[in-house]
């Protein structure tokens, strides 16, 4: 197998990059794929917390780069999915400890026996962001239906296009259908109209996401959560399956009940 390297980025902070990484990685692992997530936010790591692996960290990515351990030693195995691994960021160093070619090298070493490498980019467009996209085969941009988040996403899309990384795909996170109906929130169409990139998923606002993050159990493991369903669908689209978009309006309709059933693994 040759891994696909996917970087998840956003420009603006707090829109759900890390949540998306944790959920997509878990969903892919639940589908039987071998997945390695890399926390690219050196100095402000938190992917380990959301995956519930905080207390297992011995070595981190900077230890690998500086030769203090082997790559395998820094890969922490998930508690529930034996084919899900995390390479944590260093908490006591900064972005300059990693260079774009270090990331390319690590991903090259991971590629032969992994299905997906998922990189969690830091917010911003500085060095940490550039490290995170250096090795990417595919980039997913996360945004919220807010004007400021969309503008930052637009900036990031512009940079990705300028660096000839190809057109990224969009995850629209925390959409609230009730607010959209009352014209109090940008709709998916408004956001797509501006960004002009391909949509890979819309994740509805859901309290279960925060609860899951705090418990270290990503929301995709909750079969009743709508957000979990949305992330499971995105994971299947990443595997090349054609999954129809969820109907976010009619929450209890027969159709969405079927979708929920077929999405459950």
């Amino acid at each position: 197998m040759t891994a696909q390297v996917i970087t998840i980025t956003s420009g603006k902070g707090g829109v759900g990059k890390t949540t998306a990484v944790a959920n997509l990685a878990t969903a892919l692992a639940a589908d039987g794929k071998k997945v390695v997530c890399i926390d690219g936010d050196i100095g402000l790591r938190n992917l380990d917390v959301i995956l519930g692996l905080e207390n297992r960290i011995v070595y981190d990515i900077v230890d690998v780069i500086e030769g203090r351990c082997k790559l395998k030693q820094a890969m922490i195995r998930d508690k529930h999915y034996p084919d899900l691994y995390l390479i944590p960021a260093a908490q006591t160093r900064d972005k300059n400890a990693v260079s774009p070619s270090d990331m390319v090298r690590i991903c090259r070493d991971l590629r032969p026996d992994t299905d997906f490498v998922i990189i969690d980019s830091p917010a911003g467009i500085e060095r940490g962001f550039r490290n995170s996209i250096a090795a990417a085969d595919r980039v997913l941009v996360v945004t919220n239906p807010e004007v400021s988040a969309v503008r930052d996403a637009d900036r990031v899309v512009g940079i990705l296009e300028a660096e000839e990384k190809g057109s990224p795909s969009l995850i629209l996170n925390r959409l609230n259908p009730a607010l959209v109906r009352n014209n109090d929130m940008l709709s998916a169409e408004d956001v797509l109209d501006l960004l002009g990139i391909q949509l890979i998923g819309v994740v509805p606002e859901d309290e279960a996401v925060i609860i899951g993050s705090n418990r270290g159990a990503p929301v995709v493991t909750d079969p009743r959560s709508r957000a979990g369903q949305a992330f499971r669908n995105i994971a299947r689209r990443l595997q090349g399956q054609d999954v129809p978009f969820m109907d976010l309006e009619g929450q209890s309709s027969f159709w969405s009940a079927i979708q929920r059933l077929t999405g459950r693994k």
Partner: protein
Amino acid sequence: MEQITALVQIKGIRDGLLATFLDAAWEDQRTALLSQIDERSAFFQGARLAMDIGAQALKVNDLVELRDQLSERNVILWAVVSESPVSEQTAQLLGLATRISKPRPEEQRQFADAVSEDTALFINKTLRSGTRIEYPGHIVVVGDVNPGAEIVAEGNVIVWGRVRGMIHAGAKGNRSAYICALDLSANQLRIADEISATLKPQKDPKPEVASINSEGRLQAELWHPG
């Protein structure tokens, strides 16, 4: 090797270091720069570097590669000054500065001479947030101008698409310059030194032309064929 490193001169300026190149192939210039840095890597730690690449036309890949190589050496590339419009545009796309504090009157005059009143820059893509395009002639965009993007032209600006960013036409004071677009819901328009208030986004956009009217105010009007 000695010969090759002589292709580049690095000196201190107010905003960090400035590298200027002798005429040569880009591959040689790049090698020269990197080997000079490697020779004195301690000196270059954390340096902010500007480059004056003369008439060299660089594509995005060239600059991205160099920027990454510099960043591995802990040198930050922040500006690229060039007489070549291709390189200038590349640098702007990557968010690099294209002017440094030291004025270059000679070269700037050359550039201005080369651009007559009738020259236009043609941009065939959507301009996203953070992009700034400056040009001494007219600018034609086929695509949208998104919020956070800026276009500054000494002549007219034509946009075959939606305008939601900032457009400044007649930037050097030409009050007869105009701006036209298929959908002119820009958050700000400027012609010469007139600045418009916000234009309302329209449900059903129609082509509009903005110019300075007989009362001296910036005004947008629907386009009427004929």
